[in-house]
């Protein structure tokens, strides 16, 4: 039982995941329909997504979701049948419904049991349901004529005749959320239903009858001019839940014999076919007699034989064969989509793999080193080949975590739509480079900063339509989200064709806020950079979208936390582009390798500004670890890493200072013994024990097998620039104690010791 519960929970989790995708699809389709309300494909996609959510929710007994989604589905069904056009009002209602489904699902996912919250959501859902209900009863009079127009115009018209449809629903039809009656009802839009015979042949005995399984089958006579594909399309949504056989008006008795043979369990089918006028009793009897003459034998074998006879007699129309083939390919296509193309893998398994591959890289490097030292030519050759393979494996493993950024980008379509509507602006979102790939962990963390930038562009960048017309721009604004690879980085740009940044205005504001000294002269880029200062907002009118003070400084902080950088390009009156540069993966770092005593340290390269010689005569160091130096007329705080990390080994006579950049433009100089240059390496996270260690963000293993610690530059710069002596002393003590307690001796990290 508990095992089943586990399976159920797993399935439910996958469903939540899928439902989110479905909701995204609904939003996408709605946005598509705003541009082109007659887009049949989008309408069908919309219906399918809502339908799937409802159906699957039903399986999981999520009745609140089913109830609400049912109403949405009904409205969409009406749209699909042409009775209703998606206009602005309906579109907004559907967007809101989409959110409501998300909320309902979210409550289930989070196992919300607060009755007040549930009641409030239910009340809102009911209100929304009523609102949707008004669309169901709107403009009913002319809907029939619309449908007729659509179907006749859409398909090549055939001679009117009576088609025969034989459909057998699969057991799981009800559980998939389909009602056979609704499907058959839909045929009314294709043509006139002459008769329906309900097939009960597959009903099990009453004792074994499961009311939730579907055993129904139908023989339907349909009078229509439509082509076969149109008739089939009525069954599109249940294609995998039923067996459908369509016999064209021109078909002869032999086709019906074939049908009978295909369904050998249904003994009365012949009678039913005669009863519904599909075939005459005489024709049926004579065809059966002919069949028995040619191939006597038990019924099942006859069934197989007749197919062959029909082919031999050239009686089977190619159309039938085509249809069979088409159906077959549809089936396999569906199967492939479900199980073949993608494998769901938990993210931590991938992380584990990448971690192991990292170990493998290091181990391989160590083997190479030993081979070289042993001067064994054969071994060197083998290890070189090994290194190459390991490198490929590493790239492949990192590639597994790469996802397309497009999926993140499309989320903003909705934001752009909602916000621009709210502000009374018309804005198009252009997406470029959606196929650009980057690490999943980066994608997850870049979402919020991007959202903020997009909102900013909408709110502050794009002007009102009348203002745009006044300056000779098209009334519709454009926001462009683009992504591209650039030398091991990904560059994401959020650009708009709005009013651009006014450097002078920014400067004035900066002066007013005391961020810029009166006589300080700033370059244009520096003026733009002011918007990243904490608490800086140029919005004269504070809207509920932006201007809340948690602005661009947070964006910059988040991006820098991902080891990225932000740059602003802007032209007054022409628009603004904000360029974010991020590493492709968080698993690899471009580092700067330095040596202090016996230990190696890696400083993230993006933080390194310059390296200078440390002249003891110019440095003012206190007895502990901090101090300052005058660098080109500026005071640069210094930090002696040797003391901070209590490194072993004697300091050389000539030390170096690496000038690094902390957050919000702060700088500090780190005193090291030796510079070993740039070094690209795989980051290994620190173990649990070391997680709270100040000043260290991770570790890596060098080719020689030696462990190098990756410095947390932000924390170190803060340490260097903290002025209050008591706190500094405390911090230092704490850090020192941490290190001592953890036994942070490089030897402890080294492999094999």
């Amino acid at each position, binding site marked *: 039982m508990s095992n089943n519960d586990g399976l159920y929970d797993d399935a439910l989790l996958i469903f939540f995941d899928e439902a989110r995708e479905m909701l995204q699809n609904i939003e996408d389709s709605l946005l598509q329909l705003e541009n082109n309300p007659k887009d049949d494909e989008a309408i069908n996609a919309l219906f399918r997504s809502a339908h799937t959510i409802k159906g699957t929710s039903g399986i999981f007994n999520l009745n609140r979701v089913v109830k609400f989604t049912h109403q949405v589905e009904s409205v969409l069904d009406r749209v699909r049948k042409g009775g209703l056009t998606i206009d602005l009002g309906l579109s907004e209602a559907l967007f809101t419904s989409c959110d409501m489904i998300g909320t309902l699902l979210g409550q289930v996912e989070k196992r919300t049991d607060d009755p007040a919250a549930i009641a409030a959501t239910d009340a809102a859902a009911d209100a929304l349901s009523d609102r949707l209900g008004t669309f169901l009863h709107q403009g009913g009079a002319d809907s029939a004529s619309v449908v007729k127009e659509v179907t006749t115009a859409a398909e090549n018209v055939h001679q009117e005749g009576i088609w025969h449809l034989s459909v057998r629903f699969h057991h799981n039809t009800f559980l998939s959320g389909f*009602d056979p*009656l*609704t499907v058959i009802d839909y045929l009314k839009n294709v043509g006139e239903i002459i008769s329906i015979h309900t097939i*009960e042949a597959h*009903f099990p005995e*009453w004792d074994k*009858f499961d*009311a939730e399984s*579907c*055993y129904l089958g139908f023989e339907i006579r349909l009078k229509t001019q439509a082509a076969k594909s149109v008739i089939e399309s009525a069954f599109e949504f249940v294609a995998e839940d039923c067996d459908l056989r369509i016999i064209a008006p021109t078909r002869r008795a032999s086709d019906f014999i074939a049908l009978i043979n295909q369904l050998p369990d249904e003994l009365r089918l012949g009678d039913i076919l005669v009863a519904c006028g599909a075939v005459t009793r005489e024709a049926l009897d004579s065809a059966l007699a002919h069949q028995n003459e040619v191939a006597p034998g038990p019924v099942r074998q006859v069934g197989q034989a007749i197919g062959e006879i029909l082919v031999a007699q050239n009686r089977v129309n190619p159309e039938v064969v085509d249809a069979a083939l088409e159906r077959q390919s549809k089936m396999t296509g569906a199967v492939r989509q479900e199980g073949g193309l993608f494998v769901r893998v938990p993210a931590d398994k991938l992380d584990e793999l990448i971690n192991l591959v990292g170990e493998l890289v290091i181990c391989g490097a160590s083997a190479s080193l030993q081979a070289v030292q042993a001067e064994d030519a054969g071994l060197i050759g083998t290890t070189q080949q090994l290194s190459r393979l390991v490198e490929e494996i590493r790239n492949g493993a990192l590639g597994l975590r790469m996802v397309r950024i497009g999926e993140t980008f499309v989320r903003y379509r909705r934001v752009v739509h909602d916000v621009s509507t709210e502000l009374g602006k018309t804005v198009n979102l252009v997406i470029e480079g959606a196929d650009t790939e980057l690490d999943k962990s980066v994608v997850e963390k870049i979402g919020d900063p991007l959202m903020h930038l997009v909102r900013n562009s909408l709110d502050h960048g794009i002007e009102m339509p009348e203002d745009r017309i006044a300056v000779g721009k098209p009334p519709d604004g454009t926001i462009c989200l683009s992504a591209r690879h650039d030398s091991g980085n990904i560059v994401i740009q959020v650009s708009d064709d709005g009013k651009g940044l006014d450097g002078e205005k920014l400067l004035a504001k900066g002066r007013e806020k005391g961020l810029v000294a009166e006589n300080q002269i700033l370059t244009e880029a520096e003026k733009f950079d002011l918007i990243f200062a904490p608490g800086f907002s140029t919005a004269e009118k504070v809207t509920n979208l932006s201007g809340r003070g948690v602005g661009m400084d947070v964006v910059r902080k988040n991006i820098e936390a991902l080891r990225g950088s932000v740059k602003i390009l802007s032209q007054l009156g022409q628009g603004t582009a904000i360029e974010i540069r991020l590493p492709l993966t968080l698993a690899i770092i471009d580092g700067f390798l330095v040596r202090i005593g016996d230990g190696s340290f890696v400083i993230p390269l993006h933080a390194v500004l310059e390296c200078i010689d440390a002249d003891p005569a110019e440095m003012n160091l206190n007895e502990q670890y901090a101090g300052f130096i005058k660098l080109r007329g500026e005071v640069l705080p210094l930090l002696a890493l040797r003391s901070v990390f209590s490194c072993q080994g004697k300091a050389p006579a000539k030390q170096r200072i690496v000038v690094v950049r902390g957050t919000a433009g702060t700088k500090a100089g780190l005193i090291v013994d030796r510079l070993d240059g740039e070094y690209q390496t795989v980051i290994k996270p620190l173990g649990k024990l070391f997680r709270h260690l100040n000043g260290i963000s991770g570790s890596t293993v060098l080719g020689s097998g030696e462990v190098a610690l990756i410095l947390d530059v932000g924390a170190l710069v803060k340490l260097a620039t903290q002025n209050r002596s008591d706190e500094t002393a405390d911090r230092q003590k704490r850090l020192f104690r941490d290190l001592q307690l953890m036994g942070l001796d490089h030897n402890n990290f080294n492999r094999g010791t």
Partner: protein
Amino acid sequence: MSIKPTVMNSSFTIENVSDMQEMMRGILSRHNGEPLIEIDLSEVDEFDGAGLQLLLAFSAAAKKMGSHIQLNNLPERVAAVLTRYNVTDHFVRREQV
């Protein structure tokens, strides 16, 4: 004919068919050779394929026991479905008795 007609739930659909089947099983287990088993559909306002299927299976099961199902107070909507799907002759309708 001493058994009082059972009144069917308003939602004769997939959401309720399991419960209704239980109820019908109960009716059949109490069956005592009466030629007619009456059920009352006056409350039914929702009726779908699962409902239709259950009704047909119920009728078949009753027939095996030598009985027929009589549908009382058949709402227009349900009657229309039964007619459209050509299954009216499976049941006895109140008017016909």
